[in-house]
């Protein structure tokens, strides 16, 4: 029983990370209809920015975290302004396809740029922000770092909720996501809102990266985690923010339980089996509303 509880507890910690990355994908998709395939590499880039700031520049961890989050905020805004906005103004037959391809381009640019940095040939790690002896809950062992991950993730999600719900800017973003044309008519600068949502999504990815780097380790390929974030988003419903959170948590726990009770070789395929089941039974995801058909 202790082992099962341990598997679930670790699954919750890993799941919150999936949830945070999934959240960065979902808020973007909700507001712009663009699926961000660079989401994982945003996480990775943030980790390396923080790592270089700490290890090479010798800065304290808190400063490195600020540099990484701000850095990705600027990269996100810049990507929208310099690439996506231009694509939107162009005459491409299918704007969405062009934009999605652009995110794949961003993914390669980030990965290539990081590989130019020193220290990328070995597995690296960021020092954990929370240290100290582990916490014992019966037979379950929890690292302080794991507790910190859950607490910070929940706090970030709560702040995001409050921002969207109660601030003027957040309401503007929601309006842009709901109906961009109507938003323009009531004077909301939709283009600027889209830039802001890219910046926020990338900053969220950066926070996720800072939290997971001490836990899952850093390599230039760590952005593969985006696949699991996609899985979390699909399970919860790609347009539903609470759904992404529940999807992430469910995925983390399912992976560990499948690995523990069935086989560790099944861990890799478990998320995709769950995706297929969800898509077959409830295509809009567990928390998505009724399917929406858009006129093209």
């Amino acid at each position, binding site marked *: 029983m202790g082992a099962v509880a341990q598997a679930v507890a670790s699954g919750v910690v890993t799941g919150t990370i999936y949830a945070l990355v999934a959240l960065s994908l979902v808020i973007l998709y909700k507001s712009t209809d663009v699926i961000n395939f660079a989401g994982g590499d945003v996480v990775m880039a943030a980790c390396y920015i923080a790592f270089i700031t700490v290890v090479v520049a010798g800065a304290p961890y808190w400063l490195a975290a600020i540099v990484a989050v701000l850095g990705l905020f600027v990269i996100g805004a810049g990507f929208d302004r310099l690439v996506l906005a231009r694509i939107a103004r162009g005459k491409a037959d299918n704007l969405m396809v062009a934009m999605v391809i652009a995110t794949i381009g961003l993914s390669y640019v980030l990965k290539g740029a990081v590989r130019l940095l020193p220290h990328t040939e070995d597995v690296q790690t960021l020092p954990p922000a929370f240290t100290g002896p582990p916490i014992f809950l019966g037979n379950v062992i929890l690292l302080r770092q794991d507790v910190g991950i859950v607490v910070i993730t929940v706090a970030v999600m709560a702040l995001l909720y409050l921002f969207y719900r109660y601030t003027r800017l957040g309401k503007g973003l929601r309006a842009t996501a709901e109906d961009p044309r109507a938003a323009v008519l009531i004077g909301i600068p939709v283009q600027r809102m889209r830039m802001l949502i890219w910046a926020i999504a990338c900053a969220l990815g950066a926070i996720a990266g800072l939290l997971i780097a001490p836990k899952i380790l850093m390599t230039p390929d760590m952005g593969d985690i985006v696949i699991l974030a996609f899985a979390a988003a699909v399970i919860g419903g790609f347009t539903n923010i609470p759904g992404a959170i529940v999807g992430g948590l469910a995925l983390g726990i399912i992976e560990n339980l499948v690995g*523990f009770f069935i086989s560790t070789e099944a861990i890799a395929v478990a998320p995709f089996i769950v995706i297929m089941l969800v898509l077959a039974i409830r295509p809009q995801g567990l928390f998505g509303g009724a399917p929406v058909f858009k006129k093209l």
Partner: protein
Amino acid sequence: MFLRGIFAAILVMAGIGTAQAWPVGSPSGHYADPGITDTEITIGLFGPQSGPLRNFGFDAIGAAQMWYDMVNRSGGIWGRKIRLVIEDDKCDPTAANAVVRKLVTVDKVFLLNGGSCTAAIVATQEYITREKVPTMMLNAAGDNGVFPPTRYMFGAFGGTQLTVGGTIADFVARQLKAKKIAYLGSDDDFGAANLAAAKFMAHKHGAELVAVERVPRNIVDVTAPILRIRQANPDAVMITTYPQPATLAMQKISEFQMKMPIIAAVQAVPNPAALVKAVNNPAAFTNFYYGSPLNDLTDGPRQQWVLKMYKTAFPDRKPTAFMAYGLPSAQAITYALLLAGPTPTRESFVEAMSHLHFETGVMAGPIEFDEHKRDGHNASIFIKFDGTQSTRMPGVYVNEYRGNK
């Protein structure tokens, strides 16, 4: 003079030459194969010189290069100097295929010496076999390139994954006296190979694998496999994954306060110092060992001649952990050219390679080929690493499993 002395000593060890200079032949002026003249023999040397996997091959190429340079300074082989054409395959199968075709058709090399990654070199095998170009892998494990054996491809100068798995089980059972062994490996061909050999060698010594956990290389949470290993209550845990899962496993094992010995494969610990930093818990290394195909610690007394040679050849560079891995294939090529006589053909060279048996002075065991054996090396040493100090454990460990391939 120093290098000549070393070179002569190795020739004597190899039982191939005498402690004299390389023989000078009587060139015929007519050659059946490309890449050879009265004064020169051309070798295509390739591996990753750029890209994310550069570290696997960059220094190994340097080591091969310094060996060929030394042979040239000693007068060449049968009076011929070795000319190298060096190319970058980035460890990428597509690039490797392009590089090999270019070396064979444009540069018209006599033979190929290259490949630091299994997937890349195996991708060239069909072409190499069709064109009948002798190819000696540089430092790729190359399981699928040497099993089943084909005539023109020789490899595994550092050992295959059969060697990795078999030698760890040999060490764990014989040296650590473990009877119940837990295995954590990759869920790919590498894992399948080292697991099969580990099972065989454990069984041979009366031990058994009580937990077999195979994980993807990009796993982010190893809680489940480590819990299963903990439940099996093993005497020792062997880890043959890539570095990231190995590091996560080390973290988790120490988090769960498991005290049994941990023995990692060389691919799990490409850089011990980086592992210590990544694990971030010195207690994890109280009972930790890792394998190596070399005959000593990378800076140990038996590796000093290589380090000295490297320093002379590349005074501005610092050797990586993979440097010495590049020497044995170059040694094998020069010895086989010597054995093939003054007018070698590609076929006579392959015959010479097929009977090669020599000590490299750098690897844990001898390099041995025969008519039906194309994997050259099959031994490992083990190093106890406490997080700061490395100590070589006594003995050399071998794999006796040849597979069903």
